[in-house]
């Protein structure tokens, strides 16, 4: 108990406030904060977790210093809600592929959403949704993006730490290939002929997929300034089917501009 009271007496005054907001998503990225088991209580000591419905009932009103946003915009109401949240947050950070690129649910953007509703729900008139699933940055200015499906909890801890002490978060922007080499994994694309998205995908996961004998499937989205089409062309020349490549690029980050352009280009070629 003495430990507890000590801790209380040393609580920093005017702690920065953190709020966590959810839109269309699986909850996995905000869960990453609770998954920082070794750091969670220390974080709660240094910042005021002011709004985090998944973890606590008490909520404090804004404005907030840091707003973490999970999920994509899929309803009119959510499109309005994010504009209000933006006004309340000094730094607005998107966490994960849904908030940053629209998520797996952005597959609807290539389909007829009314048909989707009819397939899943017996009474479609009860469902209100937009035809598209879009990234937060399509609606409001975003200060920083954490990539990943899901995000890496160490990057989340780094982000909160950096914002609290007032420096830029250190998050790598090189490709998964760099992490793979560092890990000493034999290249699955070269050695096994597997169509792997590692060369065009931003690092952050630790290059786990190739270490488990499989393709990178792009959870962290496109790295800056990549030519995805040159990679898919290479795989096509090795005999990979165009249909497979469209599906490979069009998943959790499929609606991120670089991936989207690449899958659309592949489809156009098929129609020529």
């Amino acid at each position: 108990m003495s430990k507890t009271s000590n801790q209380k007496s040393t609580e920093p005054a005017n702690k920065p406030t953190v709020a966590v907001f959810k839109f269309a998503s699986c909850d996995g990225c905000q869960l990453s904060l609770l998954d920082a088991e070794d750091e969670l209580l220390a974080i709660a000591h240094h910042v005021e977790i002011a709004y985090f419905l998944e973890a606590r009932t008490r909520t404090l009103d804004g404005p907030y210093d840091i707003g973490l946003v999970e999920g994509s915009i899929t309803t009119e109401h959510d499109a309005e809600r994010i504009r209000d949240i933006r006004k309340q947050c000094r730094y607005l950070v998107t966490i994960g592929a849904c908030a940053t690129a629209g998520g797996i649910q952005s597959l609807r953007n290539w389909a007829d959403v009314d048909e989707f509703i009819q397939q899943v729900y017996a009474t479609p008139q009860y469902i209100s949704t937009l035809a598209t699933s879009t990234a937060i940055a399509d609606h409001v200015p975003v200060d920083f993006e954490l990539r990943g499906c899901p995000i890496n909890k160490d990057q989340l801890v780094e982000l909160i730490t950096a914002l609290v002490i007032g420096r830029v978060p250190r998050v790598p922007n090189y490709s998964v290939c760099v992490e793979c080499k560092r890990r000493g994994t034999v290249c699955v694309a070269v050695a096994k002929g597997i169509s792997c998205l590692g060369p065009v995908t931003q690092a952050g996961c630790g290059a786990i997929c190739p270490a488990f004998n499989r393709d990178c499937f792009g959870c962290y989205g496109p790295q800056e300034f990549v030519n995805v089409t040159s990679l898919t062309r290479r795989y096509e020349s090795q005999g990979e089917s165009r249909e497979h490549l469209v599906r490979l690029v069009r998943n959790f980050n499929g609606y991120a501009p670089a991936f989207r352009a690449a899958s659309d280009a592949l489809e156009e070629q098929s129609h020529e």
Partner: protein
Amino acid sequence: MSDKRQFEVKALSRVEGEGRLYVRVDGDKVEHVELNIYEPPRFFESFLRGREVREVPDITARICGICPVAYQMTACHALEKALGLTMTPEIRLLRRLLYCGEWIESHALHMHLLHAPDFLGYESGITMAADHREVVERGLRMKKIGNDLLAILGGRAIHPINVTVGGFYRAPRRSELKKLLPELEWGLAAAVETVRLVASFDFPAFDQAYDCVSLQHPSEYPLNEGRIVSSSGLDISVEEYESHFEERHLPQSTALHSVMLPAATSYLVGPLPRVNLCLGQLLPTARREAESCGIAWPSQNNFHSIVARGIELVAAFEEAVEIVSQYHVEPSVSRIEYTPHAGEGCHATEAPRGLIYHRYRIGDDGLIAEAKIVPPTSQNQGQIEDDLRQFVPSVLQYDDAEATRRCEHLIRNYDPCISCATHFLTLTIDRQGK
């Protein structure tokens, strides 16, 4: 003058996903209860059409960040049935171990950070930690062990990447699993402490005539396999699920609502039904704790679910210790190869929060032609509303804040995962005329 009141919880907290609760009462008569799931729909069953068989475990994992393994395991088994694949005993055992990891992570989180605060009078695990630091730290350490187990077997804790139709892309290394053994043994002892703690909580007297439903297996506690049984005597194969259970679409919800046929009645899935129906299959330590915790099983009070969850936490650690201790040789075959072809298959497994069912049809092109997914929370939704109808009269003596707190506590008995069911909670209590 009328005694009408209404209560509303606009955003339920300490649950996964988004929902609200609306209750309207007249005097002590409950006129209307509505669990409104407003989490926006994401249409997984639609966009799975036209995807490759091997993509399904990667995609369905994204339905839920808390229980991705449940989706992966159910999808893999259903698709393996469609393809006529039989798993090796080694793969089967590693899949049980993977599921143990998810049960540990999910149960430890729910018990210590989300549900125990209701019993001990705190708004969150974070606040509770100021007075019960050891309990919260113990819970976090257990949760971490579950996540570490998931990372060794699955590559990472959330949305594992090593699960595939036919087995694992790579078998876990013996050295990595053995290194975790001391922590798993610590976890087993810690979970026993936790069961004893939660069994000492005060439970509201709230016995209901639940029809409990779970998988049941003759020789093991249900995770990946078994027949579907109920406390009312149902005993069917998984293939018969859709003849006995039906999903209905109600206006207040983006989740479909499951009922048991023929009378369209509510039923209960999750830890309480599993302990009630499968007590005999628990491993010795878990069984000893179940029998000595002071609750008579079968229990008809879902406030006891936190104890059932604790017993399952012991069970998951106990089984993990057993499997890891016996993992002497890495299997030479970590996955069964296949060529996709037309077929249909369904399967049910036990997610941490209850029975989960998937059915897939593969077309002639080897791609998914149809998918049906029934998560645990949509099955429990009717039962949660039935519970509230019975429970609300007992909280009307309190002001709105306290009445709401008590209703939320009841809802958390279910560890609802609303992201899964769409598909978080907002409670409205409408006390009409006030």
